[in-house]
């Protein structure tokens, strides 16, 4: 099967979208951006390929009748669990390696048993994380494993007279995860799927038959024929220059394709906010970005979440419970944390402050929007921050208030992928013009057939 790939390497997350040659979206993938861009891009793309295979698989399962359909969800969870376990093993290896280094000579005897206890416990309880209905604070290994590790470390070190220093133990994790993340683990879809299936598919003739189908799907060859990369700091992207497109163009195009009446796009990512105006063909006519200060971008919410030990997912829903919006003045990302602490100490409600913080960000976004030319009729909100329901709510209110009731405000469950989608569309353009075929290094070595 032939397809084109678009990758949006953002400051916070890396997204990939795969289109078939008819322009249909056949796979999406996301991962956290990390210190090794190449790995981040490769992982996002692997995720997208995995999604693509899963969608093929879904079709196969559907055809396989009731049992197949029943397996769809459990299989997905089990597959995630397998991936998690693979990375957990890598983490364990890395921690062992670190402990052998001379820097840890003094504390080694205390840290090693503590770490191995924690890791054993993590492996044991891993299936709970992926059980049906389980809630995860994030989709990324770094965050999921980190949360569990810190919780277990707190338990261990919190005990009176515990000889294990908490900061060192957590430092060990932070150090190890950095290295784990920068290494590319080869992902063998077929065998992972097989292991996942072993967990959930019944061991009976019907199940065996299903597994056979799955193996088949897992091995369908996929050929990537064109590629476009985009994203923050395009100068340092690990893509060949011919394949790089401005993120402004990609976001505009992706959003326009998803909602074709859109003339205005607002993208709030981790470190930048962009307001983009597009014409009837999705081509950008003007844009504005935040200035050199990162104030009021997604990272701001990240800091706040850290400050409150919450997951990013939880921030918006909590803010939605506000009774009133506290007026928050700091849009400086770093000071917002201090202001939050100060206000909490004054006894203000957490929800109300959070609501104020969300409003502060959205006010800034509104100015950038106004700078780019405002909104005339249909408007689409994209980027990671639109996963945050409070941000969406506040924005919607502000837009209606400032531009009128007649404005259509779109958000989409996969708005975070708009940049990657636009990139994949440009890749398809290239392919159709015979300019495709240029692949980044990592894509040449990965699983593609």
């Amino acid at each position, binding site marked *: 099967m032939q397809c084109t790939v678009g990758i949006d390497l953002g400051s916070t997350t890396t997204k990939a979208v795969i289109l078939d040659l008819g*322009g249909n*979206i056949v796979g999406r*993938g996301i991962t956290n951006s990390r210190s090794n861009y190449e790995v981040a891009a490769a992982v996002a793309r692997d995720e997208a390929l995995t999604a693509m295979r*899963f969608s093929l698989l879904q079709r196969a399962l559907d055809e396989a009748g009731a049992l197949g359909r029943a397996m769809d969800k459990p299989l997905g969870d089990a597959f995630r669990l397998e991936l998690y376990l693979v990375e957990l093993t890598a983490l364990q290896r890395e921690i062992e390696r670190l402990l052998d280094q001379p820097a840890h000579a003094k504390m080694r005897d205390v840290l090693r048993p503590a770490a191995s206890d924690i890791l054993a416990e993590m492996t044991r309880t891993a299936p709970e994380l992926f059980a049906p209905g389980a809630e995860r604070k994030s989709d990324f290994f770094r965050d999921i494993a980190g949360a569990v590790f810190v919780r277990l470390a707190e338990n261990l070190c919190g005990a009176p007279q515990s000889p294990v220093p908490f900061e060192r133990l957590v430092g060990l994790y932070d150090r190890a995860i950095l290295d784990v993340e920068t290494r590319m683990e080869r992902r063998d879809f077929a065998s992972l799927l097989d292991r996942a299936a072993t967990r959930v598919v019944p061991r009976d003739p019907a199940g065996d038959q299903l597994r056979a189908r799955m193996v088949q799907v897992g091995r369908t060859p996929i050929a990537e024929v064109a590629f476009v990369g985009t994203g923050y700091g395009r100068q340092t992207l690990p893509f060949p220059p011919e394949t790089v497109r401005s993120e402004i163009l990609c976001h505009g195009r992706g959003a326009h394709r998803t909602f074709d009446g859109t003339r205005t796009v607002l993208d709030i990512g981790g470190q930048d906010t962009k307001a983009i105006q597009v014409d009837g063909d999705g081509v950008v006519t003007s844009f504005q970005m935040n200035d050199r200060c990162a104030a009021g971008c997604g990272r701001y919410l990240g800091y706040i979440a850290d400050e409150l030990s919450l997951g990013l997912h939880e921030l918006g829903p909590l803010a939605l419970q506000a009774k009133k919006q506290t007026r928050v003045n700091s849009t400086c990302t770093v000071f917002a944390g201090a202001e939050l602490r100060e206000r909490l100490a004054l006894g203000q409600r957490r929800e109300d402050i959070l609501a104020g913080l969300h409003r502060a960000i959205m006010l800034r976004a509104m100015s950038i929007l106004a700078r780019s030319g405002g909104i005339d009729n249909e408007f689409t909100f994209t980027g990671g921050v639109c996963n945050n329901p409070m941000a969406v709510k506040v924005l919607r209110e502000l837009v209606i208030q400032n531009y009128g009731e007649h404005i259509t405000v779109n958000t989409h469950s996969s708005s975070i992928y708009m940049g990657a989608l636009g990139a994949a569309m440009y890749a398809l353009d290239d392919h*159709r013009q015979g300019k495709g075929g240029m692949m980044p290094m990592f894509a040449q070595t990965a699983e593609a057939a």
Partner: protein
Amino acid sequence: MAEAPGKTAPAAAKDDSQKRQKDMIGAHFAKLARAKENGQKVVYTFVPGNLTELITALDLLPVLPEINALQSGMRKKSAVYIAEAEKAGHSEDVCTYVKCDIGMLKSGNIGPTGERLPEPDLLLLSYTGCFTFLKWFELLQQEYHCPVVMLHVPYQPDGVVTPAMRQYIVDQLENEVVPALEKLAGKKLDRDYLAEKLKLSAQAEDDLVWVWESARHKPSPIDGYFAGVYYIGPIFSAFRGSQDAVDYYRLLRSEVQARIDAGKGPTTPDGDLDDQAVRLVVEGPPNWTSFNDFWHMFSKEKAVIVASTYTRVGGLYDLGFRHDAADPLGTLADYCLGCYTNLGLPSRIELLAKYVRDYSADGFFINSVKSCNSFSAGQLLMLREVEKKTGVPGGFIESDLVDPRYFGKANIENRVQSYLQMLHARRDRSLSQIPARTTAGVQGVLS
């Protein structure tokens, strides 16, 4: 208003006119360095609305602190100077030209040619189009304790010069400025000599306008911004009204003519820009500390600048103004009133739109500098209004004149590139043939 910036000049091969300009400047600074021993008096003044003919007609030597500041920027000295001024209590928020100048003063007042600049005998505060000028010379006055003479040039809010405005300036020239300069020079102003100078000014001005207008050709034989700042060197500074300036512009004109004949574009840091994909008009001063980097961002995407407003800060000759020997003080008043930054926003918007149309530009670009409220306050409105009037898209970045802290290279490059790619994409729109909405999207397990 850049004069040839010595060793930081573009890597491009030097034209004869450039060499000539360099010699002129060298000679001027040499004269300045020896001013005190030769008993010559020195007048500091500003570029917009400068009274060079009047100053030189009395054999006084002009020094233009703005140009010293921008050259410090090009020579990578400005960061240290600015730090010096901030240490002395100057705010981070204010114009960096002033701080650069103050810092340079505090570090020994070494000019661009490595020679020490003479202290002023008089500060001629030509308060034209910029409030900061006023404070700048108040500050210098505290340092040098020399007399200041103020020439307040009223602002043109509606693009109209009223008789009262003109009269106000002539009154000041007649009663305050000329007497102060005469006193300093120790002699009476020879009005015939002044008229002669004004005649020479007008000659050079004719040729400069010809050069600007050559950008109507395709490809444009000049870059009206990055190279343009070199072209304005002599006429906006100490040389207007001199035979040297007349000769320089004659030479420049013949060089440009040769490029037109050969169908060639201007010389840039990336070589000759003959293949011009995009024609732009630029508003706002350039950044001096990363001048070549900034230029490169455009030239590597094959963008040529066909006109710019910054090169009009010292006079809008292309709108028809010429110094008029028949009415010396009146013509100086008109000159002062007509500088670009002395115009109200509506006039500035008109002018930009006119440039976009006259020079058939594909877009216009605003470099908004933190230092300069005179230029920058209102540029975001200009952006939208010019887009509305011309239908071509505008680009916008923020940087600074001589403070390298405010030139975020990656960020600026990202914007410039996005902007230029947008211009390209708008032209290639026919290529987007993918159906706008497709239904067969996959809501995969992982999304």
